[in-house]
């Protein structure tokens, strides 16, 4: 009964205009692959959805509960490896494998959580990094299980069937597009539900002040572990999806600290502890990273006529800018963190507020 009345309160708080925008976005996202045929565009959208899933998962633990894990590669990698190993060695279709991956990630989360949550602040951060590194080294060294540094290559993905009817054989990117979109919407919905529930209040109270939360009847260990379990389950789904989509995993990609940092950055850039934060972060980071990687800047400069392709400068840029994409990416991230400490979303919000104030 109370669940229904809560749901009604949430529904009533949604503004009609917001609902319309949401529906419009939803419909255009659903129609996107039907209208745009370029596989590269599909690929970019899939990467954005994947990034939203990763960022939003981390957001539940880092943004709402205030526990800054820099070891989420542990859960991403757990999902990726569980799904891939089941698929490659046991012929288990990934649609089952990913749930096995999520269950394994939850078990892993509870073990890591019960150890690391004894620590607070920077010590928790360090412990979470260490936990992920232990997993990475284990994956590197248990060659008979994980194939070590050589990684696992998916040779064929079992088609998705209902009975004998083949729904899709996953030869195009479109089924991946819809799968990723559904996962992204699911994690956003879960975040919304958490935010408007007792759990969300308790998570945020822990973020704001652990001791005060503890004194108000909040079981810190239970709620931190709950938050981590939800976060880990969805991070592992992202990992499973990544493994099947890319078709190859190895410890240095799915279990690396780079991956952990990447996950955190999505939220820091977008805005921590808000539903839209990871979405904005993904919309900024994924296209930026892709543009730098494929050297769109040089191409842009050349086609705008600012730099000639034959000139020494143009040749230099064309030759080197693509190699420097990680460097430029890093510099841009530092600039955003310095000048937008609350993320892009917080920055925009503050600007809007400042304008309203100067108008009134």
């Amino acid at each position, binding site marked *: 009964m*109370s669940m229904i*009345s*809560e749901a009604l*309160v949430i529904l009533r708080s949604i503004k009609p205009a917001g609902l319309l925008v949401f529906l419009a976005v939803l419909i255009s996202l659903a129609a996107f692959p039907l209208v745009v045929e370029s596989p590269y565009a599909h690929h970019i959208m899939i990467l954005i959805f994947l990034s939203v899933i990763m960022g939003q998962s981390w957001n539940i633990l880092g943004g709402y509960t205030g526990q800054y894990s820099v070891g989420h590669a542990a859960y991403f990698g757990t999902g990726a490896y569980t799904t891939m190993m089941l698929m490659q060695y046991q012929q288990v279709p990934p649609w089952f494998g990913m749930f096995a991956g999520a269950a394994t990630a939850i078990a892993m989360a509870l073990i890591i959580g019960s150890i690391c949550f004894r620590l607070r602040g920077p010590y928790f951060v360090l412990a979470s990094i260490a936990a992920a590194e232990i997993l990475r080294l284990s994956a590197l060294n248990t060659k008979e299980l994980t194939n070590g540094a050589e990684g696992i290559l998916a040779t064929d993905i079992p088609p998705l069937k209902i009975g004998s009817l083949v729904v899709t054989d996953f030869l195009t990117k479109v089924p991946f597009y819809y799968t990723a979109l559904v996962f992204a919407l699911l994690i956003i919905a879960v975040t919304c539900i958490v935010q*408007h*529930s*007792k759990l969300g*209040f*308790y998570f*945020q*109270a822990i*973020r*704001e*002040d652990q*001791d*005060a*939360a*503890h*004194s*108000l*009847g*909040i*079981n*810190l260990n239970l709620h931190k572990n709950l938050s981590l379990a939800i976060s880990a389950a969805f991070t592992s789904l992202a990992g499973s999806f990544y493994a099947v989509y890319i078709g190859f995993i190895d410890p240095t990609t799915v279990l690396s600290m780079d991956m952990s940092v990447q996950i955190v950055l999505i939220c820091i850039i977008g805005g921590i*502890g808000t539903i839209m934060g990871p979405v904005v972060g993904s919309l900024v980071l994924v296209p930026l990273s892709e543009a730098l990687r494929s050297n769109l800047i040089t191409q842009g400069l050349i086609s705008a006529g600012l730099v000639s392709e034959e000139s020494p400068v143009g040749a230099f840029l064309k030759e080197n800018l693509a190699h420097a994409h990680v460097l430029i990416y890093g510099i841009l991230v530092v600039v955003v963190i310095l000048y937008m400490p609350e993320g892009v979303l917080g920055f925009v919000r503050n600007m809007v507020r400042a304008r309203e104030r100067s108008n009134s």
Partner: protein
Amino acid sequence: MAILELRHVSKFFGGLAANSDVSFALEEGMIKGLIGPNGAGKTTLFNCITGYYPTSRGEIFFKGNPITGLQPDRVCRLGMVRTWQKVRPLVKMSVLDNVMVGALCRTNSLSAAREIAMEQLRVVGLDPKSGFIAEGLPIGERKKLEMARVLATKPELLLLDEVMGGLNPAESEEIIQLILDIKQRGITQMVIEHDMKAIMRISDRIVVLNSGEKLAEGTPAEIVSNQEVVDAYLGESHA
């Protein structure tokens, strides 16, 4: 019946005895003042009672049951809750949300918690500011917020750690009235306070701590005429 009983409670930090063999009982419905010089171990005692510190020795009973070693969240659910000397608002959350966090201790429904929270905000007079972000409140209102938040947990025993510290006389008077109102509602209170006029006025009985030990216990009148207490803490003007 005693709602809270301390038996020979000691707390050592290394070789330092912050509390040493403290015993007293707290009668239901009473206001107990806890006074003593800075560093006498008043807040440490609160931390021991509410489970923030494990006691080094001794036992604590709440409503007749041993609670020694219980975590603060369990203690709160049993009906004992404390405020903090240095207030701890959940700064990025609204005033109402702060109090709702307390109320959710007794209910799983957000709408029920919202009602309880609004009711307690009215009690402390903060209801017009329910939508404000806690970060923006001045100290007087932060103290009231702290009071509303602990009241929302439906406690039977409140431990108030210097709720008048840093307040002007008018604000202090409001808090005094609030404490007396809470007493009227049958909630037992233990109050740490440095404002002697206030503590003498509201307390039914007073415990004096000095260097971690219980120096004296009695009615306010007995305490002000106790020569040891006057020498250790009060000074001649109160005698």
